């Protein structure tokens, strides 16, 4: 980079390569491809905050899951008789097997945490709005596949929670009228959760990781068309609004990534079982159900919605609707303003929704009895109220604060205000 300040024409950072790299580039322009994707030639809104770390972090988390998963798969035995013992063998006998399993299990938890922050970042800053609806959909499809993949992965150790989780979730399909019973029989490949299901889940768990990876590439592709949204939620107007992705945001992502790795290491090395269920260290027993079946924490809100409806089919429909309603959010939100910064009412509703989801998580982990049932029903009802009623209505009624002219002017103003405050 020449000089401290860049002129407006200076933002086109085409790589000029010589020697071996130039020879390759002439035949396969991979270096400019990378440079256009995450390099100096990818203009990025200059005002991105740390919530924009979470997309890159999700990518890192996925790579960690795939790498550790490949190792685990090479020591795991997908049979009813061998699964539990092979996981224990990984823990005790395989060199660093404990490390791979703990990174994989806690990595899955952190992957969901990252993706949830990523999702709520979008809800706050309105990133799902025109022209990023399809980008939002691709993210939601990835989330759906993550849920399916995580559930299948949780079944593989064949402990009590694995077995009974698989039993409960596959029985959900029995709620479908007419074909339900046949469908469950088909899923099981037998008269109960057993060998056929375990092997099928193993195969699909492995496959879906790569389907997710492929969809992540498409997700990033769609992102690059209209580029990142930003905390102001206004479009890029010109070169003064952007900075090259590298080095400004690679460094920012590296910083966030380091913190993520520290948290992952802390979980893996100091509290590897904190997020898991102790019951899953008991081998699967088809003749005894654990007293209290709970999914992993990242599925608890959905589990609470499932249990809120005192009807088998109704619960399943509510569970599916809780996810599917997110696909309609770009059209349910009637406001033309993206960022909640300029939407005084929506901003508050956003935080109520966050609180509501935490309440649902707490209810999902609580026993299905007494006051918990009522709270769960209220919280579930509010979840749908937010998306189906409040979101469309508030968009119409609310008068948003004035938007800044451009990212650049807003950034300069903020800097001036900060400098003034210091004086």
């Amino acid at each position: 980079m020449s000089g401290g300040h860049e002129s407006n024409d200076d933002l086109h950072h085409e790589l000029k390569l010589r020697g071996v790299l130039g020879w390759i580039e002439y035949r396969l322009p991979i270096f400019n491809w990378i440079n256009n994707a995450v390099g100096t030639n990818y203009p990025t809104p200059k005002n991105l905050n740390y919530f924009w770390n979470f997309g890159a972090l999700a990518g890192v988390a996925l790579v960690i899951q795939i790498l550790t998963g490949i190792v685990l798969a090479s020591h795991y035995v997908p049979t009813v008789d061998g699964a539990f013992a092979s996981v224990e063998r990984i823990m005790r006998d395989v060199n660093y097997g404990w490390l791979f399993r703990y990174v994989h299990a806690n990595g899955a938890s952190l992957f969901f945490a990252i993706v949830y922050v990523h999702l709520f970042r979008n809800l706050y800053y309105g990133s799902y709005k025109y022209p990023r609806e399809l980008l939002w959909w691709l993210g939601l499809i990835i989330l759906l596949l993550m849920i399916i993949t995580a559930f299948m992965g949780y079944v593989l150790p064949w402990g009590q929670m694995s077995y009974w989780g698989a039993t409960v979730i596959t029985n959900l399909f029995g709620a479908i009228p007419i074909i339900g019973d046949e469908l469950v029989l088909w899923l099981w490949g037998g008269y109960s959760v057993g060998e056929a299901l375990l092997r099928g889940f193993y195969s699909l768990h492995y496959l879906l990781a790569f389907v997710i990876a492929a969809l992540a590439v498409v997700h990033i592709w769609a992102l690059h068309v209209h580029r990142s949204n930003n905390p102001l939620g206004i479009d890029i107007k010109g070169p003064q609004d952007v900075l090259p992705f590298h080095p400004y945001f690679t460094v920012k992502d590296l910083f966030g990534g380091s913190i993520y790795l520290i948290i992952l290491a802390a979980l893996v090395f100091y509290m590897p079982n904190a997020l898991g269920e102790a019951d899953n260290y008991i081998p699967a027993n088809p003749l005894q159900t654990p007293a209290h079946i709970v999914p992993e924490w990242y599925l608890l809100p959905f589990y609470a919605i499932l249990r809120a409806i005192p009807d088998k089919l109704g619960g399943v429909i509510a569970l599916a609707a809780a996810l599917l309603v997110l696909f309609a959010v770009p059209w349910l939100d009637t406001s033309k303003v993206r960022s909640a910064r300029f939407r005084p009412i929506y901003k508050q509703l956003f935080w109520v929704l966050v609180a509501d989801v935490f309440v649902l998580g707490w209810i999902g982990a609580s026993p299905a009895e007494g006051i918990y049932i009522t709270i769960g029903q209220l919280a579930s009802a509010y979840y749908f109220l937010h998306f189906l009623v409040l979101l469309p209505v508030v968009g119409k009624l609310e008068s948003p604060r004035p938007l800044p002219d451009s990212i650049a002017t807003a950034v300069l103003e903020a800097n001036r205000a900060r400098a003034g405050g210091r004086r």
Partner: protein
Amino acid sequence: MTTEPKGDGSRRDFLYIATGGFATVGAGTAVWPFIDQMNPAADVLALSSLEVDISGIPEGHSLTVKWRGKPVFIRHRTAVEIQEARAASVADLRDPVRDQDRAQKPEWLIVVGICTHLGCIPLGQKDTDPKGDFGGFFCPCHGSHYDTAARVRKGPAPRNLEVPDYEFLTPTLIKIG
């Protein structure tokens, strides 16, 4: 970074080198478990020695046992076989070793039954097997001939059949590995 005035780079250089060095050590530390997980696991290493009772093998007969997933040939040699093995001129062998250095007790030949050419199992353990031109073992895959001390005498194999570590715990009980 051309924006850095000369002579003022030491602080930034230090940061680059420290970060890069730390990242390199971190990457190496992360890569090692991926390599080491492919090494034999603790339960595999625990099975790495095997005790065999050889009292039931009559002279002129053999027993094949599985050790570390490979066949080990235990042959109770006849006086003729021992004599043949010791009579061979060591200097003329492809992989010159004296029979005395291969068999702790002359009547017991203990070798790993894997041809040193490409890993097939040579014939010669059963009475009805072809034993090759030198009365020991014959590998049918590519035609290697081994003598009664399991030394290669003919064919493509580069080395003699491997002698595993073993010891006689009692005159009739050996420990392999």
